[in-house]
């Protein structure tokens, strides 16, 4: 195993931030830590890098126990959320910083900097000061500053979260391409499930300092093991036993179980008579339309794709659900 995280435990004063974290990450893998804000992702990343110490547990990198090493000894690349470019240096100085520390010769530094700037499309900004760069350019410069050192491991802490939506999508593809070309093992922290699903080979879903599930994007999406993962990764509709019986007419959901179904697998039909299900909101999204259906106080999501033939719906229309029973799953609550 390339990187092993063993029994990592961390408290800040009385608050337990990480509870017994165990993960194994393969060489060359793009591995994401996905979870809501405050769940401990950054803290775990900092422990891997050596910027933060854990209360107990071990970090093993390429078979070597690095738990007690400082960040400069571990030489793990980090791309920070706010980029952390040195404002007192221009772009090329920033990128050359790590190489200079490693006593790489001047000529070689020049070659490598030119090369990496080309890779991240910043060749025209070699001598620009950091403050002249746009958000996207800063993000690319900070990435270049890391990959130029050819580290074995790169840690990303929500590197795209400060970009606006369109740029974020573009940068996502760019980042994936660079990572694949360089073949560098990456641990990527994000709270954006779309980003994690699009980028990762495998994902660990975290909540409140506890790993909920580890798996490939498809596994997490199709087979969530609990309601947190179902809700957070797939935006599943989740029904308790009594709700399932009342709304879907499905019995035999155990007490410690829940029934889940993806919004796109739950279709609606217009009802001429009054039913318990009423359209509360219609969110048109181009390629698909999302309907929010109200049942008493519960909101249920249904998605129709634009290429599906469906009748026209209005808010306050009464509807019935239609679904294929093979698409429903039972999970632990």
């Amino acid at each position, binding site marked *: 195993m390339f990187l092993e995280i063993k029994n990592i435990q961390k408290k800040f004063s009385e608050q337990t931030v990480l509870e017994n974290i165990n993960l194994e990450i393969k060489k060359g893998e793009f591995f994401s830590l996905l979870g809501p804000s405050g769940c401990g992702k950054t803290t775990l990343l900092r422990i891997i890098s050596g910027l*933060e110490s854990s209360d107990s547990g071990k970090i093993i990198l390429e078979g070597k126990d690095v738990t007690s090493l400082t960040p*400069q000894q*571990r030489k793990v690349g980090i791309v920070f959320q706010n980029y952390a470019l*040195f*404002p007192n240096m221009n772009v090329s100085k920033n990128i050359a910083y790590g190489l200079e*520390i490693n006593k790489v010769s001047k000529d070689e530094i020049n070659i490598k900097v030119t090369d990496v700037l080309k890779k991240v499309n910043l060749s025209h900004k070699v001598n620009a000061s950091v403050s002249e760069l746009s958000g996207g350019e800063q993000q690319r410069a900070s990435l270049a500053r890391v990959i130029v050192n050819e580290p074995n491991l790169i840690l990303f802490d929500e590197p795209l979260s400060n970009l606006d939506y369109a740029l974020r999508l573009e940068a996502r593809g760019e980042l994936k391409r660079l990572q694949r070309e360089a073949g560098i093992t990456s641990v990527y922290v994000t709270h954006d499930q779309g980003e994690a699903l699009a980028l990762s080979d495998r994902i660990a879903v975290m909540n409140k300092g506890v790993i909920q599930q580890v798996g490939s994007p498809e596994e997490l999406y199709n087979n969530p093991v609990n309601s947190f993962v179902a809700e957070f990764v797939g935006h599943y509709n989740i029904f308790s036993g009594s709700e399932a019986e009342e709304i879907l007419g499905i019995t035999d959901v155990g007490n410690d179980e829940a029934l889940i179904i993806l919004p796109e697998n739950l279709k609606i039909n217009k009802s001429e008579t009054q039913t318990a299900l009423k359209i509360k909101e219609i969110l048109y999204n181009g390629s698909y339309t999302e309907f929010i259906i109200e049942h008493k106080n519960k909101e249920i999501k249904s998605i129709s794709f634009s290429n599906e033939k469906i009748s026209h719906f209005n808010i306050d229309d009464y509807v019935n659900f239609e679904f294929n029973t093979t698409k429903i799953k039972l999970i632990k609550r």
Partner: protein
Amino acid sequence: MKKKFSIFEYVLLFIVLFFAIGYILFPLIELAKESFRFNLDSYKALGSPTVLGSALNSVLLSVVTVFGCAAIGILLAYYFHFYKIPFKKYLSVIFLIPLATPPIVGVVSFLYLLSDNGILSRILFAIFSKNILTGFEGWTAIIIIHLFSFYPLFFLFASASFEKLDYNVIDASNSLGASKWTTFRKIILPFLLPSVASAGIITFMASMASFSAPFVFGGSLRFLTTEIYNSKINGDTSLTAVLSVFLTLISVVFLFLLRKFRTANEYSLRMKGSVKKIDASKLYNLNLAGKVLFPLTGFLILLPVLTLLYLSLIPEGSLIRNYFGEGLTLINYQNIFTTDAVALPYYNSLMMSLIAVAGTIIIGLPASYFTAKKKIKGGNILESIITLPYGIPGTVIAICLIFSFNSGNVFSFGEILVGTFAIMPLAYTIRNIPAITQSLNSGFNNIDPSLEEASYSLGAGRFKTFRTIILPLIIPAIISGALIVFINSFGEFVSSILLYTFSTKTISIDIYSQLRLYNTGGSAASGFIMFLIVLIALIFSRRKIS
């Protein structure tokens, strides 16, 4: 990240602690000891009419100063922010001129402008052939000088607050039908309150500690600072000590008030999102009176320094012979640099200020590094001690040093410091440590911690990171802090007058002694030079800050 110290860091920490203990705590303890030296009886002096009277006068003066300066400063800031002001650019510089006027220079210029023999009364006498302007002394003189000296603080603080005021709020109030006055009273004043309160506390402390104006214009009026000076000169050690303790306690109480206020205040400011600035087309128009009044006020602010300039350019003695009849000359300026006795204070002031600048950086930079950057355990206690001198009047600091170093000890390396050259820059360093650490602390706090972490993760060690990342980013704060220290030290008078000997005379002391000798031209020329140097330093420091 394990926060272990390197040997170098231990050395720095030792130096800071040595300073904090040896030159801040130890002198205060010596003062306290001195005040109890004979027995508790010395504290009975506190009940005497002279002491009570001087305490009352000091408090009264400070209260008047605070409210007067608040009114002037807030009003000016308000008009500057919301109105079209003629010559705004120049006036906004002119209104800050008192900041570039060291205390003794301000006092001397007012003396030459408004006293019975001053320029203004001479002009009025020439016109009306009788003495119209008399009696510029005592309360009137002191209060006018205090208003002149201290209103810029309110002006600056209120202006800074206005910059953070969301103009949408004013628009909202106006659109709800509120008059300008209602908006000012109900919206603007409450908004200003935190910063104005800070300015008020600082001004109260500065006014309690004020020495020059009461010293020169006080006559038979007694104030705490001048009483301390007098009792020291009269050799009444016990009274000196008791009065000093008394004044220190009052000031330190206000210092703690200020700290409480600041922390509460910072928090509320941080909650603010982005604000809409006032746009130029929304500025109100001044009426005619206002259009005349503003340039006129600007001229009045300039008058004291113009007086100095004029007097420095006329021959010595023409004050008595014929005020306006004689031609202009540079002889007073030539004298400064040809007479050894006059050139020496220039050398002294310059050297002492530079030593103080070096000293404050040597102590302040590591102190700030440990408290604001490293946030070491007990850092806030260290910071409280290091910034304590901010609350101690210069007179008291001088007295403390005299009591502590009139014999050799560990902290003076066995030497007697009283009467030496060294004790003066030492006093300046102690007085200015709080100023430089304030500048450095905000500098360190503005450095994003992830920069340092990025450097570590790229393989840099701690020293390399400090040298290549942190130091370059903190240099602007060092420079602006150093300039403030220079400005304060170069014009220092209050503790100098208790510590100087003939060979360690500074420019301020020299100006004062020339004044006593009626050398108008010489003191005016020195005063003007000092004003110019401080002004230049001030312009640099404000440019650096912005």
